[in-house]
């Protein structure tokens, strides 16, 4: 049971959250301009990182806000969490 810091609510148990997978996947602005390979890459392919990983989380049973977390996929240590667009 991870302990996750929601940027709005503070430390909460993992059971209040749902994970949205890898962060930083932007929807292509013009999907029709993409060939099949590029569109499939957006749809299906993820980096499946071993180690430091930026991912989206949703405080689903709380404030319902989405935010980003930097989590180590090996140690499960969450280095930090932050509101969307406030990575730096």
């Amino acid at each position: 049971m991870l302990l996750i810091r929601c940027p709005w609510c503070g430390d909460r148990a993992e059971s209040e959250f749902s994970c949205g997978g890898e962060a930083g996947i932007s929807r292509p602005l013009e999907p029709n301009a993409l060939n099949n390979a590029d569109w499939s890459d957006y749809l299906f392919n993820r980096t499946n990182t071993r180690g430091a990983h930026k991912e989206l989380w949703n405080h689903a049973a709380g404030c319902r806000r989405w935010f980003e977390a930097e989590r180590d996929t090996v140690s499960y240590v969450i280095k930090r969490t932050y509101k969307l667009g406030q990575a730096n």
Partner: protein
Amino acid sequence: MARLQINRLEEGGCIDRSKPLNFSFNGKRLQGFAGDTLASALLANGVKLVSRSFKLHRPRGIVAAGAEEPNAILQIGRGAETLPNLRATQVELYEGLEARSTKGWPSLRFDIAAINDRFSGLFGAGFYYKTFMWPKSFWKHYEAFIRASAGLGNAPTEADPDHYEHRNAHCDVLVAGGGPAGLMAALVAGRSGARVIMVDDQDQFGGRLLSQRDRIDDMSGKDWVQKVTTELSTLDNVRLLPRSTVFGYYDHNFLAIAERCSDHLPQVERKGVRERLWRVRAKQVVLAQGAFERPLVFCNNDRPGVMTASAVSTYINRYGVCPGQRVVVFTNNDSAYTAALDIADANINVVVIDSRVGGAGSLGKVVRARDIPVLQGHIVTDVVGRKHISRVRVAKWSGDTEAVVENSINIDCDLLAMSGGWSPAVHLHSQSGGKNLWNAQSLCFEPGESIQANFSAGASNGRWQLSDCLRDGLRAGLEALKRCNLTATSIDAPVVEQLDDYNIEALWRVPAAYDADHCSKQFIDYQNDTSVADIRQAVREGYQNVEHVKRYTALGFGTDQGKLGNINGMAVLAECLGEDIPAIGTTTFRPAYTPVTFGVGAGKNVGLLFDPTRKSAIHDLHVSAGAAFEPVGQWLRPWYFPKANEDLHAAVARECIATRKSVGMMDASTLGKIDARGPDVVKFLERIYTHNIGKMRVGRCAYGIMLGEDGVLMDDGVMARLGENHFYLTTTTGGAANVLSWMESWLQTEWPELDVYLTSLTDHFSTIAVAGPNSRNVLQKIGCDAELAHDAFPFMSVQDTILGGFPVQLFRVSFSGELAFEINIDSAYAADMWQMLVTAGTEFDLTPYGTETMHVLRAEKGFVIVGQDTDGSVTPVDLRMNWLLSKDKDFLGKRSLERPDCIREGRKQLVGLLSEDNETVIPEGTQLLDDPSASKPVPMCGHVTSSYFSACLGHPIALALVSGGHKRKGEIIYASLADGSAIPVKIVSPVFYDAKGDRQSA
């Protein structure tokens, strides 16, 4: 009866001799004392044989005194209260306790399957894999045999009548284990004001101090424990949890504790919660669970009467029981000398066999001074006595494991106390992610660097002397405080009169005395009958990895999870492979540390509280009307409304005909409802839905679908434009929460620039669908402010109005294909509205109907249900919904509709099916075949998704997904039925009724 406690010492122990307790074992009435465990009471009564082993059904007795006990696994209690697989060493005795062995048929003493032992050569490593695999069809017989003969206890057949609960807690310092190290850590943390939880699996704190006769600060160890626990219990910031086990150490310092609240009480005195699960988030954890004493590996080392030396000390010092009158102590280290002294002080004969040529240190001198015989450089090679030890064979030994040893001496005895050294209980450290390091001097795995916020201390940190344990506990407490940024109160480690030393020398297995068969009786894992021979065989057959050897030989399986035997097993494996023990590594330690009950895991989440049941605001009226209900997700919905003796089919036929002929009414409140508004709401919905939103006029409705980015149909529903920038969206019953989350995720993560607000109205509003040619007349009868005529209130429009005196949102939409209205009303008034309609509808034969009739009516019209007629592969094109797909804009999933897989030939497409015999209702899920006579496996071309008997049409109808189905209208294919037959069906349009749609637009 108390005099029958033949092994009870005259004095000593933490038992109350003034409180005798009656109990029974396998039906035999026995007596013990308050303070006994079931194990100590059995030993006091001279009970030697407690169970049969798992595979060979060898007689077994009590080996240990704690959680590591592998043999005394008993069934406690009876009826619904019974608990299987409890370790007698951890069961507190209470008045009326009933205990039974779970193995041995027809009885424990005369066990027919013990014949297995005579043929143990047939039952080697991998026996189950090799023997029971052929012929395959016999597995069901084998399984029954294995279950019956393996028999690890019986689960109660009745529902559990007890209460369990879960509780969350936070603390600064969690101390796992209340022995000397744990007590010191808790004491310094508690005095310093930290929020402390201290947990111990026994009824009393103290750990080894209850089992040994140590002196601390000039008082007995037991008095010191009393002093410390008394102080801790007065501190408000300290919570003591005895009878509790930290069984799991999870991520981010989250630990699970099972507290046994009432199992130690007689049945009649049990009240309230039986067990409690503590879910604790600790800032820091001190791991002080102690250590396990290892057995020595010699021939027939599993005979009843062979115990660990520390267990013998525990039974003498804590329970006033000596389980034998003539005792041999067999050791490879100093610690068992303490047991020899305990035995001698109980005026019982004892001989020490020490494998070390050099013998023991300072303790050896004390033992010798007491005239206790000590044979240094000797080993026990074999045990005589089947159901109980009567003699040991002892041989001289120089330390060479390959040397064949000649038996030289026989010693008569009825108890063998062995010590093969100690293994720290590193389980929780390992569960937390920490590695274990081999200590070549202490010959054990010790906890390595902490990965999470914890400190190991005491014996579980490889500290063997009491003074070291106390100091180590204090250190761990101080470090934990520092990490919590708390100021520590100064405290000194207590003074201990120190004698004990360790000086272990390796003796992983005693050299086999006569032949190879000998080592098949050298047991490593008692519960699973894993012997030295099994490990050797596994290596011969090519197994090298410790995890594989574990699974092949069953080493470390079972309720004790290898607490006793694992290290010995790894050492023997290392020897076979010619490697060092650390190179072999350990198997993985997983929760639970000791078995936990299903009850404590479930807590209060059982029965009605397992999952919430959602009921509409009109539910009680449906109950009064005699509706049959069906669960739809969490909702409980009326399924059909039977009259008199009607069954489902009769009721549905009547409801369907009444609706098409006159008027029917359904509670559609479970539909998901979302209010969407804001300056950018049109822009937003254009991206979510596939049709053109901007072209919708205010006051009009539209059927809308949304796709996942993969182009698969995700949800559908009717939407209404209530204002320029205000929409009302409905979703499927099951999709309500997902659709809202889906929309919000896009708004927050991808399009934060859009100014849109989404609000769920699902529970706020109730929905009543009134459908049929007379629906307009019913509404007019109760009085509607709005003009209901077709031109004034056209199909697919919405108006805010007053109906029957209530403010409503009135939709003219239809999921039945009939002239129909959906009344959206504040849930507070919904039941009144329903009742008013029932009354007004009498003259029109207004017929309430449930989900089944709704399904039939919509299927007659070819309307799909997302999730029933579609799955995770179906696109709107497969459903012929191309007309809904806007060409003028982008929307989620649009690009995917052009993916090669979505445009290939032969995709499964929605069609209607008619049984050629005009009477068979094909079961939903039936596979469809082009050619039933094709060679097996017969290729399938599709499957049936919806299938009903249509009373209105007088024949069965079905919807199906058929490969290339849109171009195959009129073709005959075959439905493969469960009896193996295949019947012909014709592919037709999925719209069976009123194909032009005149009725809904009437």
